């Protein structure tokens, strides 16, 4: 078992051999990863959090399905959106669910969003040398009921912020969010909070606009967008169609 894992890793990390002898083959070797594309976005508000992801699942230049959900409800107040390799994403979701069940047995309550954020970071770093190919955005309400968004890289480095995007459309969406939501400067006093001053419906409209724009130029983003809104009343879900080309 262990030698099989090492063999896989060396295939991934070893440098390509130069084409010297006539018998050497040129071309891709087997990879344990695939990228199923897609984009995830989250925006935190004073008392709400909006998490959205497109519903297209692709491989290479083909579409696998047009209505795959990248969003996973882990706890009552916490939702995970992940783009990347969906097999790893699913495995990560199941892992977190199992850990959350154990937590609930031990503490007789659900995990808070900041606690889940730390757990996700630890879970990702645990596989530092064979990572989950998963680009995550965690959104929810913190212990005080304020919206929170945590954004991750593949190996667990994370930060709390007011908004974030990950995935194939990240570079298209992030500048738009910065333009609309970013506070003037970190040097401005009094210091601005992490969360944004938009109302809930404004945030949802912004999300819809950004996805529609990203779907124009990013070939891996489209088909539809699934939007989840968490506030003190509970969790609500909306969908919107996107261009299918």
């Amino acid at each position: 078992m262990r030698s099989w894992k090492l063999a896989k890793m060396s295939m991934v990390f070893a440098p390509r051999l130069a084409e010297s002898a006539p018998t050497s083959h040129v071309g891709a070797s087997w990879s344990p990863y695939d990228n199923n594309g897609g984009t995830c976005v989250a925006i935190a508000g004073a008392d709400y959090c909006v998490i959205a992801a497109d519903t297209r699942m692709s491989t290479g230049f083909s579409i696998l399905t047009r209505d795959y959900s990248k969003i996973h409800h882990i706890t009552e107040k916490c939702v995970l959106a992940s783009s990347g390799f969906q097999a790893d994403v699913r495995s990560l979701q199941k892992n977190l669910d199992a850990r959350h069940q154990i937590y609930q047995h031990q503490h007789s309550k659900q995990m808070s969003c900041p606690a889940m954020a730390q757990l996700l970071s630890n879970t990702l770093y645990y596989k530092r040398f064979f990572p989950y190919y998963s680009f995550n955005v965690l959104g929810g309400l913190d212990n005080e009921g304020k919206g929170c968004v945590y954004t991750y890289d593949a190996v667990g480095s994370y930060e709390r912020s007011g908004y974030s995007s990950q995935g194939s459309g990240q570079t298209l969406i992030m500048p738009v969010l910065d333009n609309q939501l970013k506070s003037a400067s970190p040097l401005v006093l009094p210091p601005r909070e992490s969360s944004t001053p938009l109302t809930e419906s404004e945030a949802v409209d912004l999300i819809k606009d950004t996805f529609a724009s990203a779907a124009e130029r990013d070939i891996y983003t489209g088909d539809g967008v699934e939007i989840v809104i968490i506030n003190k009343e509970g969790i609500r879900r909306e969908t919107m169609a996107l261009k299918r080309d």
Partner: protein
Amino acid sequence: MFRNQYDTDVTTWSPAGRLHQVEYAMEAVKQGSAAIGLRSKTHVVLATVNKASSELSSYQKKLFKIDNHIGIAMAGLTADGRVLSRYMRSECVTHNFVYESPLPVGRLVVQVADKAQVCTQRSWKRPYGVGLLVAGLDETGPHLYQNCPSGNYFEFHAFAIGSRSQAAKTYLERKFESFMDCSKVELVRHALHAVKESLQEEELSSANCGVAIVGIGEPFVILDSKSLQAYIDSLEEGKNDQAAKLEVEEEGNAAVIERQDISGGAGVGVGAEGEGPTDMET
């Protein structure tokens, strides 16, 4: 029980073909405060007598949620029960992870029984000193099982274990035939009546008993003291009706509590005569 020459080791048989250590372990279960379980076509109810060692201390926890569809009540060494409940929870989580479906109760009960049996056949271990009443729901409906330190397990319509459980069992024996069609409220009331029998002189209150329910469409939940007190209060109101009903039922209802084979699984007819108890304890 008198001392025997053959009771030092769990791995020593007595000439009479008994393992005394295992029987002593079951004695520990009988010393613990009572736990009662009963089921209907749609629900299973567990009730416990909560005994605090002194006025200053709180009582020991005897009702545990294992998964959304399974819970247990224990009698005996509750520390052993806590360890077993951690094992059961972990088995449920693992099964859920691998199969994305809830672990059937009967399977979990067998796993616990096998775990208990190991401790009866290793010289460096001792048997678990706790009896479990496992209440759960699966595709075939609600079930109530008992796990013994001996490694045996049985399925029941209704049962009670622990000290002064015989009083509760007598009540259950009288009433169990009506349980199948009981509503949730009626079932909880029956459970509380059974607990009352075990408490004997003491007044029933939310401080000295605990109740948990699992049912079709209802995940396992341990009642909080407010809901519990409401049920207890409703018992008092219904008392006059109960007295009248009892007189009618008392006549000729001496059925034995039925025991179902795990392998069979089919519902045993209410009118059938119960098989004579042949298990090691009780």
